[in-house]
């Protein structure tokens, strides 16, 4: 059946429910809720969450916003914690300690801090060992939970509280890490990059594939942060669309090593369109800083071209 947003929202339960305390205009709960909707309603899920905005806003004792089983242990170990839950499932299922007719799916959520940085080792281990799980990085491009500190996912020149745009150093000087590519290097069956755009089709379908592909799967999902990025809360979906249309955040998937770009903008917009509405890039638009925008554009273009090349090469 073709994807129908109305049908999904009306007929599939929201397993990440209302009552959580994430900010208005935050991208994380929007993608989290849609990803969870991609589960078959009859399947049980064990959700692991790294410490971060999502965890501290959705499970404040004694309340939880999750209708599935949920575990949080610490910041850097969502990959390993989820590994353990999945290993127990395998062993217990094998021994007949769990009902044979009921499936449980394993999913881990981590922000970019808990995934690109402090949790990278744990994630790498879990992916390499091939646990049957989905790891979702909701990437908001900085340590937002502790107050907007730079991470290795922070884009170049962004103003953060530990890479402030100062008189001598104009923001974060290094380009961001390409995590999806690192995951592709693990030779796992499914890697995808996506975001919440238009009718959520790309996000939903990739989540569904990730859940129902046997083995380790990784989703890198852009999750804008109004406080850290400096955009009006109502503009979340606009920012997402601009990220895709400028090719700042290309939408693609890698299935068994084959790249497929799932969204090629009819007209690739200049990167200023994405940068201008965000306060964290404000200094780039000051007179004399045109070189920063040029450099940023070059980086985006090179990465986009590389992706086009990879798509061609891996499908030859």
């Amino acid at each position, binding site marked *: 059946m073709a994807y129908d947003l109305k049908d999904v929202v009306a007929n599939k339960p929201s397993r990440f429910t209302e009552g959580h305390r994430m900010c208005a205009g935050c991208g994380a709960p929007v993608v989290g809720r849609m990803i969870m909707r991609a589960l078959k309603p009859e399947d049980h899920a064990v959700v*692991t969450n790294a410490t971060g905005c999502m965890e501290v806003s959705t499970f404040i004792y004694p309340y939880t916003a999750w209708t599935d089983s949920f575990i949080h242990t610490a910041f850097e170990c969502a990959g390993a*914690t989820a*590994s*353990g*839950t999945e290993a*127990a499932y395998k062993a217990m299922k094998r021994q007949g300690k769990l009902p044979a007719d009921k499936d449980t799916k394993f999913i881990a959520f981590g922000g970019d801090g808990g995934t690109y940085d402090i949790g990278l080792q*744990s994630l790498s*281990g879990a992916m390499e060992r091939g646990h049957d799980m989905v790891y979702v990085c909701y990437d908001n491009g900085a340590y937002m939970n502790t107050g907007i500190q730079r991470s290795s996912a922070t884009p170049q020149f962004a103003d953060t509280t530990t890479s402030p745009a100062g008189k001598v150093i104009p923001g974060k000087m290094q380009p961001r890490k390409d995590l999806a590519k690192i995951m592709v290097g693990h030779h796992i069956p499914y890697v995808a990059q996506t975001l919440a755009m238009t009718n959520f089709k790309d996000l939903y379908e990739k989540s569904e594939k990730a859940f129902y592909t046997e083995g380790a799967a990784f989703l890198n999902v852009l999750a804008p942060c109004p406080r850290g990025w400096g955009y009006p809360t109502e503009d979340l979906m606009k920012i997402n669309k601009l990220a895709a249309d400028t090719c700042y955040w290309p939408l693609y998937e890698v299935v068994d090593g084959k790249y497929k770009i799932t969204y090629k903008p009819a007209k690739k917009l200049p990167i200023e369109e994405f940068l201008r509405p965000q306060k964290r890039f404000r200094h780039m638009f000051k007179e004399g800083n045109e070189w920063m925008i040029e450099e940023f554009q070059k980086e985006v273009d090179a990465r986009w071209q590389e992706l086009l090349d990879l798509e061609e090469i891996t499908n030859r």
Partner: protein
Amino acid sequence: MSIRERLSGNEATAIAMKQINPDVVAAFPITPSTEIPQYFSTFVANGDVDTEFVAVESEHSAMSATIGASAAGGRAMTATSANGLSLMWEMIYIASSLRLPIVMALVNRAVSGPLNIHNDHSDAMGVRDAGWIMLFSENNQEAYDNMLMAHRIAEHKDVLLPVMVCQDGFITSHSIENIELENDEDVKKFVGEYKPQHYLLNADEPIAVGPLDLQGYLFEHKAQQADAMRAAKNVIKEVSADFEKWTGRKYDFFEEYKLSDAEVAIVCMNSTAGTTKAVVDDLREKGVKAGLLKVRMYRPFPAEEIAEALSHLKAVAVLDKSDSLNAAGGALFEDVTSAMYVNERYVPMVNYVYGIGGRDTTEKQLESVFLDLVEIAQVQNVDNPYRYLGLRKGEN
């Protein structure tokens, strides 16, 4: 019927784990505990167990995966030493706070730095207040026996705390000794089937584990952990009594060796107790009324019972195989002296830090401790309670 064997402490531990047949073992190699996951992965590879073995990429992940597995509803185990435990440290506290009955073999080794792979107790002492039950083992038999009892203690409804079974790296982990093993069926019966009350994999009752626990709740939750630790004393007593009924091998909170009529005594843990017993026997023949109190259950700490057991002595030496570097004394010394004070018992006490980084501890050295005690007993005065044993002179 017991089976007579010759095994190292690591082999004995691995065999206990095989007989327990846990759902998940997640471990990372580190000397001197490496052999435990090594032997165990052979059992997995040969289909001798039903366990899922997770060969994690670090000890932090070993404990994280063990926590995940235990919260999921499985019986989960791991093994480590020294720096491995240091890397786990964050997760050690999380394991106990989530009230997960994980069992870990800790093969004691000096914590870096500088790097040293040999035995002392600095690894265990670093987590002594982390909410784990800690059992110490004099030899491979005790390491095996403590392991067989560990799940019964950890999983008891009044406890639900993780258990650490300690033994001395190389000294017992790699030395082959005679041992009595129990047969698989009897072990299975004694350990019993694990039936978790609430667990992640129960689709009929989804649960959330590991919340943000703020000012209104954390204090009470910590107090519940403390209550469980107090309750563990009774459970350990009961399980040890059942174990004795089954195997004939008796375990208590601590072992008293020729203590009841002793005038001077050493308090220590793990393999040094074996050497001390030989010295006690020797001194008894020479007319010195020497004795030993070997602590088996270090956490919960049997403060009242130890104070009572030491109260009749004229002088006591507490041996710490880890220096607390606090200008006051070792951890075991401070625990024992506070136990005495709070229970209003006064006996002159002296602390010896010994065996650091695997420094050999000889019968002669232990005899010198007893002779110091005889002198202290006469003058009833300790001028320097914080001493070293076996340290080369002029280099400290």
